[in-house]
């Protein structure tokens, strides 16, 4: 190829070619809407969030406490066994300081976001969430954190019933 081929196909367009209508084009805006039933495990998980608690499922096959909870164990490939409440404290496994919103638009006030493994679940098992009450200089992997819940009347049965995770204070957890 590279050595022998003379012509590399493809005609480059600039942004202006599209946005100022310089090339022939057509447009379409989809209007798709979805509703997801939460299923067996996630329904209970969301109901418990509304009550201000995290819940997991145990598997006696591999002796794990599975979080987020599921009704079957993907490793043992059998039904999980029991519901088990776990703590709302945990450890930051990793994080990012994001200057991008979901559409890749730039934001000036960065979002602190990462993965928290929760106390009481098997090691490394956790969820993605926001962090606050700490600066981007203070946040670090291994930091101990605790969930800050919305007031009960504001909870909707969503991961957003937790507002964010804050640093664990002395004497807590």
């Amino acid at each position: 190829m590279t050595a022998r081929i003379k012509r590399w196909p493809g005609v480059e367009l600039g942004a202006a070619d599209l946005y100022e209508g310089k090339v022939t084009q057509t447009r379409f805006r989809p209007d798709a809407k979805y509703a997801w039933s939460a299923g067996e495990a996630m329904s209970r998980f969301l109901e418990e969030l509304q009550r201000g608690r995290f819940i997991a499922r145990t598997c006696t096959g591999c002796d794990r406490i599975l979080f987020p909870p599921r009704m079957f164990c993907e490793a043992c490939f059998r039904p999980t066994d029991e519901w088990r409440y776990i703590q709302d404290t945990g450890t930051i496994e990793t994080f990012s300081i994001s200057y991008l919103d979901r559409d890749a638009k730039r934001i000036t006030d960065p979002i602190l976001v990462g993965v928290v493994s929760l106390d009481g679940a098997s090691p490394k098992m956790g969820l993605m969430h926001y962090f606050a009450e700490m600066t981007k200089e203070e946040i670090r992997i291994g930091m101990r954190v605790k969930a800050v819940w919305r007031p009960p009347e504001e909870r909707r049965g969503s991961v957003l019933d937790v507002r964010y995770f804050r640093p664990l204070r002395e004497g807590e957890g």
Partner: protein
Amino acid sequence: MIGAGMTLFRRRLQETPPELCYEAARMALDSAGLELSDIGAVVSGSAPDAFDGVHMKGEYYLDGCGGVGRPYMRVFTGGGTGVFSTIAGWWHVASGLFDAVLVVNEEKMSCCQPHPQSVFANIWDPILDRPLQPNLVWIFAMEMNRYMTVHGIKKEDIALVAVKNKRNAVGHPCAQLADPNITVDDVMRSEVMAWPVQRLDISPPSDGASAIVLASEEFIRRRRIKDRAWVSGVGWCIDSTMWTDRDLVFPEYVARAAKMAYKMARIDRPRKQIDFAEPYDPFDYKELHHLEGLLLADRGEAPTLTREGVTARDGDLPTCPSGGLLGVGNPIAATMGQKIGELFWQLTGQAGTRQIPHEVRTGVAQAWGDLMQYGSVVVMRA
């Protein structure tokens, strides 16, 4: 493998998906000296339909792939498609069902407005992740941070990969982001997107297509085809989609895929037996992460190889001599052009100014995708 082709990779191309597929497929056939009538079956690969905005995308661009009236299938394993469609093409030939198979990968990300990121948002779990309004860059930032922090790797050492690959891409005729003068300082001073990911750590969205031709030994002998490289091992593996339950520090699924491919290729000492590598590099840290997953570096040691020049084009383990995704561009599945295509061009001595200066006889290509969970690996020999 007896032929390869690819289009320019650019942020926006004028051609439609079927037109891009046709250009790449025609080029691959020409390079193999074949006509479409010689092809028994066609495999195509592409990422989520939502980029092009047409469901049943495999059928949308079918005519350009040469699939009409033939056994045809599309495969999709996220970013892993860049190498996985070659594996699917290989099954068709290795099974004995077909003598010659055309594989065509396409991606047109520019159709999606204002930015393909809005479509990436739909890959997240609707209950656990989406309420947090995640941006896809977040998960790479989280993986990169975990990798850097656990191993104590400096950001500057990761930036060296971006510098190497964007410089390597200078010799690639299709490259979108080649830069002969880029420095570590440029990368370190580029815009912070989602720390630790900065603008020059990341490959951009692109449009493009690539194609290859695979054939049986008997067919190659009968047609007296001289430019060929042999697929000697294939492997693929996926980890759980419950990504918040995994330690992101090491891509175990890539290691499993690599072991499968190495076993088939009778490779038991990959660091001695593999001459060059094309690991998937949509981000600079991913090349390092994947070199470790491919068992070509100890855990946390890949940055040292880069710093010492081992992975430079004239080093002991040239890595991404194509310029990779960081330099050539990242039209997701179409990156088969830099991964599989580059193995072919290097092993047949056709890589032009990108040619590795010493003799190379065995190369490995790898792609990666879905929610940081999929690895596909191909080993090829001269």
